[in-house]
Protein backbone atom coordinates (compact mmCIF):
# COMPACT_ATOMS: atom_id res chain seq x y z
CA UNK A 1 0.00 0.00 0.00
CA UNK A 2 2.73 2.46 -0.80
CA UNK A 3 2.05 5.44 -2.99
CA UNK A 4 5.24 6.41 -4.82
CA UNK A 5 6.88 9.78 -4.52
CA UNK A 6 6.02 12.31 -7.21
CA UNK A 7 2.48 11.06 -7.81
CA UNK A 8 0.54 13.22 -5.38
CA UNK A 9 0.12 17.00 -5.34
CA UNK A 10 0.83 19.31 -2.42
CA UNK A 11 -2.70 19.61 -0.91
CA UNK A 12 -3.05 15.82 -0.70
CA UNK A 13 0.42 15.49 0.80
CA UNK A 14 -0.34 18.19 3.36
CA UNK A 15 -3.69 16.62 4.27
CA UNK A 16 -2.06 13.21 4.67
CA UNK A 17 0.70 14.64 6.83
CA UNK A 18 -1.81 16.44 9.07
CA UNK A 19 -3.93 13.33 9.52
CA UNK A 20 -0.84 11.26 10.29
CA UNK A 21 0.48 13.85 12.78
CA UNK A 22 -2.87 14.12 14.57
CA UNK A 23 -3.32 10.34 14.60
CA UNK A 24 0.21 9.81 15.91
CA UNK A 25 -0.17 12.40 18.67
CA UNK A 26 -3.52 10.93 19.72
CA UNK A 27 -2.17 7.38 19.46
CA UNK A 28 0.84 8.15 21.67
CA UNK A 29 -1.41 9.81 24.27
CA UNK A 30 -3.70 6.78 24.27
CA UNK A 31 -0.80 4.34 24.53
CA UNK A 32 -0.58 2.91 28.06
CA UNK A 33 2.89 2.32 29.47
CA UNK A 34 2.40 -1.46 29.51
CA UNK A 35 1.56 -1.48 25.81
CA UNK A 36 4.79 0.18 24.63
CA UNK A 37 6.52 -3.16 23.83
CA UNK A 38 3.36 -4.33 22.08
CA UNK A 39 3.42 -1.20 19.96
CA UNK A 40 7.05 -1.91 19.07
CA UNK A 41 6.32 -5.50 18.09
CA UNK A 42 3.43 -4.43 15.87
CA UNK A 43 5.67 -1.80 14.31
CA UNK A 44 8.35 -4.42 13.59
CA UNK A 45 5.70 -6.74 12.13
CA UNK A 46 4.39 -4.00 9.82
CA UNK A 47 7.94 -3.17 8.80
CA UNK A 48 8.76 -6.75 7.84
CA UNK A 49 5.30 -7.60 6.47
CA UNK A 50 5.99 -5.73 3.24
CA UNK A 51 8.75 -8.24 2.51
CA UNK A 52 6.56 -11.30 2.98
CA UNK A 53 5.87 -12.22 -0.55
CA UNK A 54 2.81 -14.15 -1.64
CA UNK A 55 2.55 -15.34 -5.21
CA UNK A 56 -0.90 -15.04 -6.70
CA UNK A 57 -0.50 -16.53 -10.14
CA UNK A 58 0.66 -13.77 -12.44
CA UNK A 59 0.68 -11.11 -9.77
CA UNK A 60 2.27 -10.95 -6.35
CA UNK A 61 1.34 -9.14 -3.19
CA UNK A 62 2.48 -8.71 0.37
CA UNK A 63 0.85 -8.79 3.78
CA UNK A 64 -0.19 -5.45 5.24
CA UNK A 65 -1.22 -6.50 8.79
CA UNK A 66 -2.86 -3.12 9.46
CA UNK A 67 -6.12 -4.74 10.65
CA UNK A 68 -4.26 -6.96 13.10
CA UNK A 69 -2.29 -3.94 14.30
CA UNK A 70 -5.51 -1.99 14.83
CA UNK A 71 -6.96 -4.87 16.82
CA UNK A 72 -3.86 -5.01 19.05
CA UNK A 73 -3.26 -1.30 19.46
CA UNK A 74 -6.37 0.68 18.58
CA UNK A 75 -5.37 4.29 17.92
CA UNK A 76 -1.78 3.57 18.88
CA UNK A 77 -1.44 1.88 15.50
CA UNK A 78 -0.68 5.34 14.08
CA UNK A 79 2.76 5.77 15.71
CA UNK A 80 3.62 2.10 15.03
CA UNK A 81 2.69 2.51 11.39
CA UNK A 82 4.54 5.79 11.02
CA UNK A 83 7.77 4.28 12.35
CA UNK A 84 7.43 1.18 10.15
CA UNK A 85 6.77 3.24 7.02
CA UNK A 86 9.57 5.67 7.84
CA UNK A 87 12.02 2.78 8.06
CA UNK A 88 10.64 1.23 4.86
CA UNK A 89 11.07 4.55 3.07
CA UNK A 90 14.62 5.09 4.33
CA UNK A 91 15.92 1.52 4.13
CA UNK A 92 13.90 -0.10 1.34
CA UNK A 93 12.97 3.00 -0.70
CA UNK A 94 9.34 1.83 -0.56
CA UNK A 95 7.12 4.88 -0.65
CA UNK A 96 9.14 7.93 0.32
CA UNK A 97 9.64 10.62 2.93
CA UNK A 98 7.43 13.19 1.21
CA UNK A 99 4.48 10.79 0.92
CA UNK A 100 5.10 9.32 4.40
CA UNK A 101 2.11 11.11 5.94
CA UNK A 102 -0.29 10.01 3.23
CA UNK A 103 0.93 6.42 3.34
CA UNK A 104 0.73 6.30 7.16
CA UNK A 105 -2.82 7.69 7.14
CA UNK A 106 -3.91 5.39 4.34
CA UNK A 107 -2.63 2.32 6.19
CA UNK A 108 -3.27 3.21 9.83
CA UNK A 109 -6.69 4.87 9.45
CA UNK A 110 -8.53 1.85 7.99
CA UNK A 111 -6.47 -0.44 10.25
CA UNK A 112 -7.67 1.40 13.36
CA UNK A 113 -11.28 1.36 12.19
CA UNK A 114 -11.20 -2.34 11.25
CA UNK A 115 -9.41 -3.20 14.50
CA UNK A 116 -11.79 -1.25 16.73
CA UNK A 117 -14.76 -2.77 14.91
CA UNK A 118 -13.34 -6.24 15.47
CA UNK A 119 -12.76 -5.42 19.16
CA UNK A 120 -16.38 -4.41 19.41
CA UNK A 121 -17.42 -7.68 17.79
CA UNK A 122 -15.19 -9.61 20.20
CA UNK A 123 -16.81 -7.94 23.19
CA UNK A 124 -20.19 -9.01 21.80
CA UNK A 125 -19.09 -12.64 21.94
CA UNK A 126 -18.75 -12.99 18.18
CA UNK A 127 -16.45 -15.98 17.42
CA UNK A 128 -12.78 -14.86 17.33
CA UNK A 129 -12.29 -16.52 13.93
CA UNK A 130 -14.84 -14.18 12.36
CA UNK A 131 -13.54 -11.14 14.25
CA UNK A 132 -10.01 -11.80 13.06
CA UNK A 133 -11.13 -12.22 9.49
CA UNK A 134 -13.10 -8.98 9.61
CA UNK A 135 -10.10 -7.09 11.03
CA UNK A 136 -7.62 -8.49 8.50
CA UNK A 137 -9.75 -8.28 5.37
CA UNK A 138 -11.35 -4.99 6.40
CA UNK A 139 -7.98 -3.37 6.95
CA UNK A 140 -6.73 -4.27 3.48
CA UNK A 141 -9.92 -3.32 1.65
CA UNK A 142 -10.13 -0.08 3.64
CA UNK A 143 -6.53 0.78 2.75
CA UNK A 144 -7.22 0.10 -0.95
CA UNK A 145 -10.22 2.43 -0.86
CA UNK A 146 -8.15 5.06 0.98
CA UNK A 147 -5.37 4.87 -1.65
CA UNK A 148 -7.98 5.33 -4.37
CA UNK A 149 -9.35 8.27 -2.39
CA UNK A 150 -5.91 9.90 -2.33
CA UNK A 151 -5.42 9.31 -6.05
CA UNK A 152 -8.76 10.75 -7.11
CA UNK A 153 -7.31 14.23 -6.62
CA UNK A 154 -4.62 13.43 -9.17
CA UNK A 155 -7.06 13.00 -12.00
CA UNK A 156 -7.54 9.26 -11.85
CA UNK A 157 -11.20 8.45 -12.25
CA UNK A 158 -12.14 7.59 -8.69
CA UNK A 159 -14.63 4.81 -9.21
CA UNK A 160 -12.54 2.99 -11.78
CA UNK A 161 -9.38 3.30 -9.68
CA UNK A 162 -11.14 2.27 -6.49
CA UNK A 163 -12.68 -0.77 -8.19
CA UNK A 164 -9.35 -1.68 -9.75
CA UNK A 165 -7.50 -1.37 -6.45
CA UNK A 166 -10.16 -3.15 -4.40
CA UNK A 167 -10.39 -5.88 -7.03
CA UNK A 168 -6.63 -6.35 -7.10
CA UNK A 169 -6.55 -6.48 -3.32
CA UNK A 170 -9.37 -8.99 -2.80
CA UNK A 171 -7.06 -12.04 -2.90
CA UNK A 172 -4.60 -10.44 -0.48
CA UNK A 173 -7.52 -9.34 1.72
CA UNK A 174 -8.71 -12.98 1.90
CA UNK A 175 -5.22 -14.23 2.76
CA UNK A 176 -4.73 -11.48 5.31
CA UNK A 177 -8.17 -12.20 6.76
CA UNK A 178 -7.32 -15.90 7.19
CA UNK A 179 -3.87 -15.17 8.69
CA UNK A 180 -5.36 -12.62 11.10
CA UNK A 181 -8.24 -14.96 11.98
CA UNK A 182 -5.81 -17.72 12.98
CA UNK A 183 -3.68 -15.34 15.04
CA UNK A 184 -6.78 -13.96 16.80
CA UNK A 185 -8.20 -17.44 17.51
CA UNK A 186 -4.85 -18.51 18.89
CA UNK A 187 -4.46 -15.43 21.09
CA UNK A 188 -8.06 -15.57 22.30
CA UNK A 189 -7.21 -18.98 23.76
CA UNK A 190 -3.73 -18.30 25.06
CA UNK A 191 -3.73 -14.59 25.90
CA UNK A 192 -7.11 -12.86 25.68
CA UNK A 193 -5.59 -9.78 27.37
CA UNK A 194 -3.79 -9.14 24.11
CA UNK A 195 -7.00 -8.42 22.24
CA UNK A 196 -8.85 -5.31 23.17
CA UNK A 197 -7.46 -2.62 25.43
CA UNK A 198 -6.09 -5.09 27.92
CA UNK A 199 -7.52 -3.77 31.18
CA UNK A 200 -11.15 -4.56 30.49
CA UNK A 201 -10.39 -8.06 29.35
CA UNK A 202 -7.67 -8.89 31.84
CA UNK A 203 -10.33 -10.19 34.23
CA UNK A 204 -11.34 -12.77 31.62
CA UNK A 205 -7.94 -14.42 31.77
CA UNK A 206 -7.33 -17.26 34.12
Amino acid at each position, binding site marked *: *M*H*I*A*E*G*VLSLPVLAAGASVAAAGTAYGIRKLP*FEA*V*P*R*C*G*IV*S*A*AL*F*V*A*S*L*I*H*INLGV*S*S*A*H*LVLNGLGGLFLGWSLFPACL*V*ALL*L*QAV*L*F*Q*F*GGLVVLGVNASVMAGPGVLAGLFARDLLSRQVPPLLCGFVAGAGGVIGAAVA*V*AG*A*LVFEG*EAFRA*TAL*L*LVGANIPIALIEGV*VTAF*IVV*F*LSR*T*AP*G*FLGNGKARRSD*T*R
Partner: protein
Amino acid sequence: MRNRGFFTLICIMTILGGLWVSPARAHKLNVFAYIEGETVTGEAYFADGAPVKDSAVQVQDSDGTVLAESVTDGEGRFVLPVSGSLKTFSVVVSGGPGHQGKMELTRIEEGRPPGQEKEAEDGRPMETGKNGDVDVKKLDQALRRIVREETEPLKRLLSRMNEQLSKPGPAEVIGGIGYIVGLVGIGLWAGNRKRKGH
Protein backbone atom coordinates in the same frame (compact mmCIF):
# COMPACT_ATOMS: atom_id res chain seq x y z
CA MET B 1 0.02 -15.02 30.70
CA ARG B 2 1.15 -11.85 29.00
CA ASN B 3 4.63 -13.20 28.46
CA ARG B 4 3.18 -16.28 26.88
CA GLY B 5 1.17 -14.08 24.54
CA PHE B 6 4.29 -12.26 23.47
CA PHE B 7 6.14 -15.51 23.00
CA THR B 8 3.33 -16.83 20.82
CA LEU B 9 3.27 -13.69 18.74
CA ILE B 10 7.01 -13.85 18.21
CA CYS B 11 6.67 -17.51 17.15
CA ILE B 12 3.94 -16.60 14.67
CA MET B 13 6.04 -13.81 13.28
CA THR B 14 9.05 -16.08 12.90
CA ILE B 15 6.91 -18.56 10.98
CA LEU B 16 5.59 -15.77 8.77
CA GLY B 17 9.14 -14.57 8.32
CA GLY B 18 10.02 -18.03 7.02
CA LEU B 19 7.60 -17.49 4.17
CA TRP B 20 9.80 -14.66 3.01
CA VAL B 21 11.40 -16.20 -0.05
CA SER B 22 12.14 -13.09 -2.03
CA PRO B 23 11.34 -9.45 -1.39
CA ALA B 24 7.83 -8.61 -2.49
CA ARG B 25 6.95 -6.41 -5.42
CA ALA B 26 5.95 -3.87 -2.82
CA HIS B 27 5.17 -1.19 -5.36
CA LYS B 28 8.70 0.03 -5.71
CA LEU B 29 9.26 0.71 -9.37
CA ASN B 30 12.82 0.82 -10.67
CA VAL B 31 13.86 2.34 -13.96
CA PHE B 32 17.19 1.65 -15.59
CA ALA B 33 18.01 3.39 -18.87
CA TYR B 34 20.98 4.49 -20.95
CA ILE B 35 21.47 6.90 -23.82
CA GLU B 36 22.48 5.64 -27.23
CA GLY B 37 22.90 8.43 -29.75
CA GLU B 38 19.43 9.73 -30.54
CA THR B 39 17.57 7.14 -28.49
CA VAL B 40 17.21 6.19 -24.85
CA THR B 41 16.89 2.48 -24.13
CA GLY B 42 15.99 0.90 -20.83
CA GLU B 43 13.79 -1.29 -18.73
CA ALA B 44 11.47 -0.98 -15.75
CA TYR B 45 10.87 -3.57 -13.06
CA PHE B 46 9.36 -3.85 -9.59
CA ALA B 47 11.45 -4.43 -6.48
CA ASP B 48 11.18 -8.22 -6.85
CA GLY B 49 12.47 -8.09 -10.44
CA ALA B 50 9.08 -8.57 -12.13
CA PRO B 51 8.90 -6.45 -15.31
CA VAL B 52 6.59 -3.44 -15.48
CA LYS B 53 4.57 -4.53 -18.51
CA ASP B 54 2.54 -2.37 -20.92
CA SER B 55 3.00 0.81 -18.92
CA ALA B 56 3.42 4.38 -20.08
CA VAL B 57 6.98 5.73 -20.40
CA GLN B 58 7.80 9.39 -20.87
CA VAL B 59 10.90 11.40 -21.53
CA GLN B 60 10.65 14.67 -19.61
CA ASP B 61 13.01 17.61 -19.54
CA SER B 62 14.00 19.32 -16.29
CA ASP B 63 10.77 21.40 -16.30
CA GLY B 64 8.62 18.29 -16.54
CA THR B 65 7.61 18.89 -20.16
CA VAL B 66 6.89 15.63 -21.95
CA LEU B 67 9.19 15.26 -24.97
CA ALA B 68 8.46 11.67 -26.00
CA GLU B 69 6.04 8.95 -24.97
CA SER B 70 5.88 5.20 -25.39
CA VAL B 71 4.72 1.98 -23.73
CA THR B 72 6.86 -0.77 -22.21
CA ASP B 73 6.78 -4.20 -23.86
CA GLY B 74 6.03 -7.55 -22.20
CA GLU B 75 9.48 -7.60 -20.61
CA GLY B 76 9.35 -4.05 -19.33
CA ARG B 77 11.73 -2.72 -21.99
CA PHE B 78 11.35 0.51 -23.88
CA VAL B 79 13.08 2.61 -26.54
CA LEU B 80 12.37 6.32 -26.90
CA PRO B 81 13.77 9.01 -29.18
CA VAL B 82 15.67 11.94 -27.65
CA SER B 83 17.25 14.80 -29.51
CA GLY B 84 21.03 14.88 -29.37
CA SER B 85 21.04 18.44 -28.03
CA LEU B 86 19.18 17.45 -24.86
CA LYS B 87 21.79 17.24 -22.11
CA THR B 88 19.79 16.22 -19.03
CA PHE B 89 16.36 14.66 -18.90
CA SER B 90 14.44 12.06 -16.94
CA VAL B 91 12.65 8.87 -17.91
CA VAL B 92 9.40 8.40 -15.99
CA VAL B 93 7.51 5.09 -15.95
CA SER B 94 3.93 5.01 -14.62
CA GLY B 95 2.97 1.51 -13.54
CA GLY B 96 -0.69 1.91 -12.64
CA PRO B 97 -2.38 3.71 -9.74
CA GLY B 98 0.17 5.21 -7.37
CA HIS B 99 3.17 3.49 -8.92
CA GLN B 100 5.82 5.59 -10.55
CA GLY B 101 9.54 5.25 -11.17
CA LYS B 102 12.01 7.81 -12.45
CA MET B 103 15.59 7.86 -13.62
CA GLU B 104 17.52 11.01 -14.36
CA LEU B 105 19.96 10.82 -17.23
CA THR B 106 22.77 13.10 -18.24
CA ARG B 107 24.29 12.87 -21.67
CA ILE B 108 27.99 12.25 -21.28
CA GLU B 109 30.03 13.88 -24.04
CA GLU B 110 30.41 11.31 -26.77
CA GLY B 111 33.88 9.85 -26.56
CA ARG B 112 35.00 11.39 -29.85
CA PRO B 113 35.86 15.07 -29.96
CA PRO B 114 35.19 16.83 -33.28
CA GLY B 115 38.85 16.86 -34.29
CA GLN B 116 39.08 13.10 -34.23
CA GLU B 117 36.45 12.64 -36.89
CA LYS B 118 38.51 14.76 -39.21
CA GLU B 119 41.51 12.59 -38.56
CA ALA B 120 39.59 9.51 -39.57
CA GLU B 121 38.49 11.23 -42.74
CA ASP B 122 42.01 12.26 -43.43
CA GLY B 123 43.31 8.79 -42.89
CA ARG B 124 40.68 7.17 -45.01
CA PRO B 125 41.62 8.26 -48.53
CA MET B 126 45.02 6.64 -48.21
CA GLU B 127 43.36 3.24 -48.31
CA THR B 128 40.35 3.63 -50.54
CA GLY B 129 40.92 6.76 -52.54
CA LYS B 130 38.06 8.82 -53.91
CA ASN B 131 35.09 7.03 -52.37
CA GLY B 132 36.62 7.31 -48.92
CA ASP B 133 34.02 9.69 -47.60
CA VAL B 134 31.11 7.30 -48.22
CA ASP B 135 33.03 4.34 -46.86
CA VAL B 136 33.85 6.18 -43.67
CA LYS B 137 30.16 6.73 -43.02
CA LYS B 138 29.41 3.07 -43.61
CA LEU B 139 32.34 2.04 -41.51
CA ASP B 140 31.21 4.38 -38.77
CA GLN B 141 27.72 2.87 -38.80
CA ALA B 142 29.03 -0.66 -38.86
CA LEU B 143 31.39 0.02 -35.98
CA ARG B 144 28.61 1.56 -33.95
CA ARG B 145 26.42 -1.47 -34.61
CA ILE B 146 29.17 -3.89 -33.64
CA VAL B 147 30.00 -1.99 -30.47
CA ARG B 148 26.32 -1.89 -29.59
CA GLU B 149 25.93 -5.62 -30.11
CA GLU B 150 29.13 -6.46 -28.28
CA THR B 151 28.28 -4.32 -25.25
CA GLU B 152 24.72 -5.68 -25.05
CA PRO B 153 25.64 -8.38 -22.46
CA LEU B 154 27.46 -5.75 -20.41
CA LYS B 155 24.40 -3.54 -20.41
CA ARG B 156 22.28 -6.49 -19.35
CA LEU B 157 24.73 -7.22 -16.56
CA LEU B 158 24.60 -3.61 -15.39
CA SER B 159 20.83 -3.73 -15.47
CA ARG B 160 20.82 -6.94 -13.40
CA MET B 161 23.28 -5.48 -10.91
CA ASN B 162 21.14 -2.41 -10.59
CA GLU B 163 18.14 -4.66 -9.97
CA GLN B 164 19.98 -6.63 -7.28
CA LEU B 165 21.19 -3.47 -5.59
CA SER B 166 17.68 -2.08 -5.39
CA LYS B 167 16.42 -5.09 -3.41
CA PRO B 168 16.41 -4.75 0.36
CA GLY B 169 18.86 -7.11 2.03
CA PRO B 170 19.07 -8.69 5.48
CA ALA B 171 21.18 -5.79 6.74
CA GLU B 172 18.35 -3.32 6.14
CA VAL B 173 15.77 -5.63 7.74
CA ILE B 174 17.83 -6.30 10.85
CA GLY B 175 18.81 -2.65 11.10
CA GLY B 176 15.18 -1.55 10.91
CA ILE B 177 14.07 -4.00 13.60
CA GLY B 178 16.95 -2.89 15.80
CA TYR B 179 15.82 0.70 15.36
CA ILE B 180 12.31 -0.21 16.51
CA VAL B 181 13.71 -2.07 19.55
CA GLY B 182 15.63 1.08 20.37
CA LEU B 183 12.49 3.21 20.13
CA VAL B 184 10.65 0.81 22.45
CA GLY B 185 13.57 1.10 24.86
CA ILE B 186 13.32 4.90 24.78
CA GLY B 187 9.55 4.70 25.31
CA LEU B 188 9.92 2.35 28.29
CA TRP B 189 12.73 4.40 29.79
CA ALA B 190 10.77 7.65 29.48
CA GLY B 191 7.63 6.00 30.85
CA ASN B 192 9.54 4.55 33.78
CA ARG B 193 11.08 7.92 34.66
CA LYS B 194 7.67 9.51 34.55
CA ARG B 195 6.25 6.83 36.84
CA LYS B 196 9.06 7.09 39.36
CA GLY B 197 8.87 10.86 39.24
CA HIS B 198 5.25 10.92 40.30
